[in-house]
């Protein structure tokens, strides 16, 4: 969060030049908006002038027809301004929307080209801020900043020229308040921004606290924490109150101050201008026009000072966005990628593979093993032995540093990335569910017919559960999967894998305990999944391990033992010890029998 609060300079030509490129496809709209804005500004300057003409030429000479004519002109110009202002707002905002659409698409597409290692370092929340919040900040720049600032400048210049033309001495006297208005506004912006930031931080704290305590209310109540939590909440709540009261202070003095400055301008006009009228150096109409002009200084100045904020935030946001867009995709389709016409047979070979996530912290050291098509391999070992890493390398989630990984005898780095990944079905320990339905979670975005979805659910023993649901496959699933039990989520992940009918299965078996009934179903489903497929399984259950053709025992990144269950037991090595531990456990349980 702190990162998002840092604001730097308000203008950076390098960033600005790059931002302007997003306007390029819409330059005709931008030009149109610019013309409309300039037109609007000049009308803004015209209206007090019309009042002057009405007073001097027609009212003081009692010319009723002329007065009527000027009123009609006034009305026509009002209507013109109405059309200009509406069209300008629409064109500008609409262009802003188009640019936002382009930017969001660009960032989101880019995110999907990045390798999982990028996601290891960047929390999801931060990425959402890029795609949603930062882009939104830039929207303000395009729709309310870059173009309309010309309108403000032009209006201010127009007013200055008009009053200097009317009477340059009085003009200069009146303009003397402009710097004061500008300074007051700048100080106010600075104060208001500061308190606004404090309020936002306070609100974020309140929300975080409430979110947490509403979710954990049972714990609060069970542990008699009501009073203590209320006291803690009071601290945060008070912080929010104080920040707001400071904010009120900024607003409370700002409006009176501006009012006072504009009264000073009126007083100067009456004093100095009134004298000139008496001398005959200024007409009455011009005096009235002066008063009207002096009231119009404030708006463009306030707008421009707001634009400073917009620019500053936009620079910070675009800096972050561009950094993300410039992050190179490290794992991409190789040039001249090999894309075999036939789907993979499923022969896998690791040939002296070395891998480190960072520098030379080797996670895998010289790993070699071979799996024939249809063979099943169980990988066992302690936490941190490199089991999960081994499976991630197969689908090129990470690229290896030394050695070779072969699929059907071809180095996977030379294979078409989509072809490679489509050859595998991966079931991870934590089943990730997308919000949608059970069906959409089995199918994902692939064009899989309904029957195959049903068939897959049937095959992994999910059908019984589905029949108990009124909506069956259409049963809604939320992202955290809270409507499903742990076991059901496992089965769903199996159905997903089966429906995609891969040639190779990668399974990271879940460790969490489920009731025996579900356990049995999961075991059967795994059997079904392994049928006729090359399977690489990170196994935790003895029953699973024993069913595999080959067991690989990993220890500290090395393959220490390879063989069947019987062979490895006979070796009396690491596997034997692991098995002993299990055996001992079983003995403890036996005496009651």
């Amino acid at each position, binding site marked *: 969060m702190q990162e998002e609060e840092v604001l730097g300079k308000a203008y950076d030509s390098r960033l600005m030049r790059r931002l302007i490129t997003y306007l390029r496809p819409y330059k005709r709209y931008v030009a149109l908006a610019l013309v409309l804005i300039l037109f609007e500004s000049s009308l803004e300057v015209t209206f007090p002038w019309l*009042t002057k003409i009405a007073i001097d030429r027609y009212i003081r000479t009692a010319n009723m027809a002329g007065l009527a004519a000027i009123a009609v002109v006034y009305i026509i110009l009002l209507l013109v301004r109405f059309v200009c202002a509406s069209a300008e707002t629409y064109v500008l905002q609409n262009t802003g929307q188009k640019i936002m659409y382009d930017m969001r698409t660009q960032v989101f597409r880019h995110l999907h080209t990045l390798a999982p290692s990028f996601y290891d370092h960047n929390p999801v929340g931060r990425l959402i801020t890029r795609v949603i919040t930062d882009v939104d900040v830039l929207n303000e720049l395009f729709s309310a900043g870059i173009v309309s600032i010309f309108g403000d400048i032009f209006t201010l210049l127009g007013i200055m020229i008009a009053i200097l033309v009317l009477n340059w001495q009085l003009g200069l006297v009146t303009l003397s308040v402009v710097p004061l208005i500008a300074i007051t506004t700048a100080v106010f912006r600075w104060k208001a921004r500061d308190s606004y930031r404090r309020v936002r931080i306070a609100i974020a704290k309140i929300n975080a606290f409430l979110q947490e305590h509403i979710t954990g209310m049972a714990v609060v109540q069970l542990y008699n924490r009501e009073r203590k939590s209320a006291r803690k909440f009071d601290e945060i709540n008070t912080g929010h109150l104080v920040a707001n009261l400071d904010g009120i202070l900024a607003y409370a003095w700002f409006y009176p101050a501006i009012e006072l400055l504009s009264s000073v301008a009126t007083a100067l006009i009456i004093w100095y201008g009134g004298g000139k009228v008496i001398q005959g150096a200024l007409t009455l109409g011009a005096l009235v026009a002066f008063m009207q002009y002096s009231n119009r200084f404030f708006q463009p100045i306030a707008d421009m000072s707001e634009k400073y904020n917009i620019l500053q935030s936009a620079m910070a946001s675009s800096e972050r966005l561009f950094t993300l867009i410039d992050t190179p995709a490290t794992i991409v389709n190789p040039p001249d990628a090999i894309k075999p016409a036939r789907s993979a047979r499923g022969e896998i070979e690791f040939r002296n593979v070395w891998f480190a996530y960072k520098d030379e912290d080797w996670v895998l050291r010289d790993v070699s093993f071979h799996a024939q098509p249809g063979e099943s391999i169980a990988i066992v070992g302690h936490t941190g032995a490199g089991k999960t890493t081994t499976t991630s390398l197969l689908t090129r989630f990470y690229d290896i540093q030394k050695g070779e990984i072969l699929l059907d005898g071809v180095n996977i780095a030379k294979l078409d990335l989509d072809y490679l990944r489509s050859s595998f079905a991966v079931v991870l320990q934590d089943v990730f569910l997308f919000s949608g339905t059970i069906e959409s979670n089995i199918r994902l975005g692939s064009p899989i017919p309904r029957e195959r979805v049903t068939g897959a659910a049937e095959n992994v023993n999910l059908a019984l559960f589905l029949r108990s649901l009124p909506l069956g496959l259409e049963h809604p699933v939320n992202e955290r999967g809270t409507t499903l039990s742990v076991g059901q989520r496992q089965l769903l992940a199996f159905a997903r894998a089966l429906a995609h009918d891969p040639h190779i299965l990668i399974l990271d078996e879940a460790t969490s305990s489920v009731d025996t009934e579900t356990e049995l179903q999961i075991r059967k489903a795994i059997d079904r999944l392994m049928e006729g497929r090359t399977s690489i399984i990170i196994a935790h259950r003895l029953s699973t391990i024993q069913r595999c053709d080959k067991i690989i025992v990993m220890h500290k990144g090395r393959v220490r033992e390879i063989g069947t269950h019987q062979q490895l037991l006979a070796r009396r090595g690491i596997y034997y010890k692991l098995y002993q531990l299990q055996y001992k456990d079983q003995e403890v349980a036996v005496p009651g029998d």
Partner: protein
Amino acid sequence: MAAADAHQWSILNRLKSHLFRHRGRIAAGFLAVLLTNLFLLAAPRVTGYAVDSLKEPGARETLPYYALAIIGLALCEGVFRFSMRRLIIGVSRQIEYELRADLFQHLETLPMSFYQRNKTGDLMSRVTNDLSNVRMLFGPGIMYTANTIVVTVFAVVLMLKINWQLTLLALLPLPVVSLSVRHFGKRIHDLTEESQSRLADLSARVQESMAGIRVVKAFVQERYEIDEFDRLNRSLVAKNRELIRAQSVFYPTMELMIGFAVVIVIWVGGRQVVQGTISLGDFVAFTVYLARLTWPMIALGWVVNLLERGRASMERLNHIFDTIPDVKDEPQVVADFEVEGSIEFRNLNFAYNGAPTLRNISLAIPKGKTVAIVGATGSGKSTLVQLIPRLYNAPPNSLFIDGVPIERIPIGVLRRAIGFIPQDTFLFGETIRENIAFGVELANDAEIQRAAEISHIDADVQAFPNKYQTLVGERGITLSGGQKQRTAISRAVIRDPKILILDDALSSVDTYTEEQILHELKQVMRNRTSILISHRVSTVKEADEIVVLDKGEIVECGTHAELLARDGYYAELHRRQLLEEELAVSE
């Protein structure tokens, strides 16, 4: 109609006491509104006189006085405008603070059934958006209502004094301003909400796509994800376009109407100056009054929307405030009760949401014993133990603690004697130390460490750079499921409870560590009552008594050996688990 109105606004009754509490400042605020506008509207009159004075002889000498008078009036006005905002908006913030505190404390009294009915997101929206709407109602809402009324009355009276025909004509376009603010304001607000919700959808999509990136990549779903994103992106832009259409005519319409009023003054007022009905100074003053009326007219339309929105929000807040907690101390509680630790269910039947969950449960757990509960998912195990700390109310006279019906024991006393570790481990985003000491008033480092050792989390914590000061959750480190569960056990153990309840709270801990924790707990819980729920035979086999639940009924009951001899559900469970016992590879 009047009656219906009266009812609508009675929703705001709750605010009365808050408003009354701050009545002094509110009254002073209203006085400030009055004085502000008095000075504000005196200024144009002075300007008008000054313009008229130009024609008279000796004007040179009087002009400085007019100029000073204008500045003096602005100064006075400024002082009161400053006070007006500080007083009224300040009070609204104060009341917001009070309401938020009340709301939170009320939420703390509401039982679990309430939180199951209401989604967290909805409750959050009540406490944030609705509260803010209510605040707007009696902050800016009240301030601008008062201001509008005062300005309108003052300005119209002063304008009428100049010329009534001109006044009526010039004011003609102004109600249109109010109406268009109201109409467009409402439409823009509604469209903004819709746009926000589409943005939230888009954001949720990004969140899922990023969180599930490994699945997306493994199943080669990048294109599908991008297409889905594009669909939502387009739908957001489409909604925003509607919003832009409304916005692009909103301000220009207002400017147009105000411009019309100015033209009327120039035209009609100009004629009257020519005819000599009004002076040029009157004419000038008139244009300024008109300018002073525009903001209040804009505010009027806005305020009506604020009031409507605030009222609707207050109604939603009242739904929470009016929820009476059904789990609360009854009048006949035994005030000085002390929990010993024996528990008895006596023919207990319990229905949850109308569906019978527990049937005819009779079970006595003597003080100091350990009872384990096993059974399939949905058999009612959790519900049974949740009745003990009164997360739900058991029917009267069916659950007894030390022989006293549970409904007669003060909830605070009861819960203080229980260490309950729920199935879904919930830790707060604070330090590990604070999480462990969550349920005790004061705890020293030794006590915290001891509790952590019992639940075998101490070694893990010592490995973190900040030890017990390590933050848990988003801002700190992410604990594994097992670490969370073990922390939650420390949180219960440190309370030195008379009754310890583990609701499947070791499911993510490997069997080896689990056995050690159970062993430690056994030492600590000597002479205390323990209830364990688990799927694992290894967890429950040493209990004094094992209870098997099936579809809400007790089907078997006895020690490990007895139940194996019975050769029923438990024996079957045991046999299966012998085959499937996990290979303890992880630690």
